[in-house]
């Protein structure tokens, strides 16, 4: 089912288009951009690409434990539910700009939601 969603959204080309828009929204948002202040933009963009691929139901190897480990340093800096919601909202707005169907956007939001506990280290 996930693979079907990934293809419906447009596969890897759609991920590439979405990363550019999504990462710009996040970097421009003072409520969350402190968590993305890595000076190496290429490395950051690669991380965003991996995240979007997963959120679109595409091929990925993330486990809950990876999510926990990968965000622990951000949780220590105050990452909370509000930040999580803002990121998901930016992702939904990105997909709307790319004319993705609302039903697919809901599915993406559901995949994000399934990672909330691990991302926030609960």
């Amino acid at each position, binding site marked *: 089912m996930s693979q079907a969603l990934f293809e419906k959204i447009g596969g890897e080309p759609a991920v590439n288009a979405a990363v*550019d828009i999504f990462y*710009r929204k996040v970097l421009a948002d003072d409520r969350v951009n402190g968590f993305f202040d890595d000076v190496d*933009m290429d490395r950051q*963009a690669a991380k965003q690409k991996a995240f979007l691929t997963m959120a679109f139901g595409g091929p990925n190897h993330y486990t809950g434990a990876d999510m926990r480990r990968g965000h622990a340093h951000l949780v220590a800096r105050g990452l909370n539910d509000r930040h999580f919601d803002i990121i998901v909202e930016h992702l939904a707005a990105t997909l709307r700009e790319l004319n993705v169907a609302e039903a697919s956007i809901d599915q993406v939001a559901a995949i994000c939601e399934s990672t909330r506990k691990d991302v926030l280290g609960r």
Partner: protein
Amino acid sequence: MPEILLDGKGYALADGETVLDALTRGGAAVPSSCRSGVCQTCLMRAVEGSIPAESQKGLKGTLQARGYFLACQCMPGGTLRVERPGAEAGRLSATVRAITPLNRDIVSVALECSDMGDYRAGQFINVFKDGTVSRSYSLASAPGIDPHLTLHVRKVAEGRVSGWIHETLRVGDTVAISQPLGECFYLPSDPEQPLLLLGTGSGLAPLYGIIRDALRHGHRGPIHLYHGSRHKDGLYLTDELHALAREHASVQYHPCVSREEPSGDLRRGRVVDLALGDLTALAGWRVFLCGHPDMVQSARKRLYLAGASLKDMYADAFIRSAA
């Protein structure tokens, strides 16, 4: 403890050390420059033992297949037998054909290298002062336009290589250089795309090659070049660039000074601020950034936020040398 074997001698690898660290600490002469995995000066070849994939990042497939790796990025899990790079890894010999002052601190060095194959305007080469010390310099020349490879070398305070180039190197001398490296160059993929070129100091070098290369390829879209320096005497090639803008209606040249009142057609301010003030939205632009690493980092972020796409931003690999 793993060991690095070179020239029949063993060098112990301490915890957290790279191959370059261990060899240098043990007194082996290994050339290095950026120590960040970019300049490829510390290229070596593993003949026994396994090397981590990270240490081969950015190398050509043919070099990877033959066991080449970057010593500054290599933290092997076990013992490794290594050797110095051979001729196939691209050490070339060049002859100095001209050394010409461009301003108070910068000279143009023209090199003739018959063994160098194709290169792209905007790439860089490593220039070796001797067996261990080298620095990366961007090419200011463009193939098909300039007869020689040209570098813009700024004299850095206590710079070992730039000092040697400025004071000791003479026309007719032979120097060792690397193959051309780097991905910051023009591709004739979309001749209508607007181009923005931002450079500070000797960061003009690759841009001077790229802008002429783009025009030679028949680029038709607008080309805006901003070259910045603190003071007027830090600018150079101004006559040539004004002439280029006169010959090509698509080219706009903005010489900028940040620390003094501008005179004539000079503009006052930093190149990024002036470009963003003039252009505001950068969606669809192709951007080339060259110069001080802090300028490049901050410009990348600001131009991206102004709409430039990540895949359309090219930056040279200038990194302040750690060696």
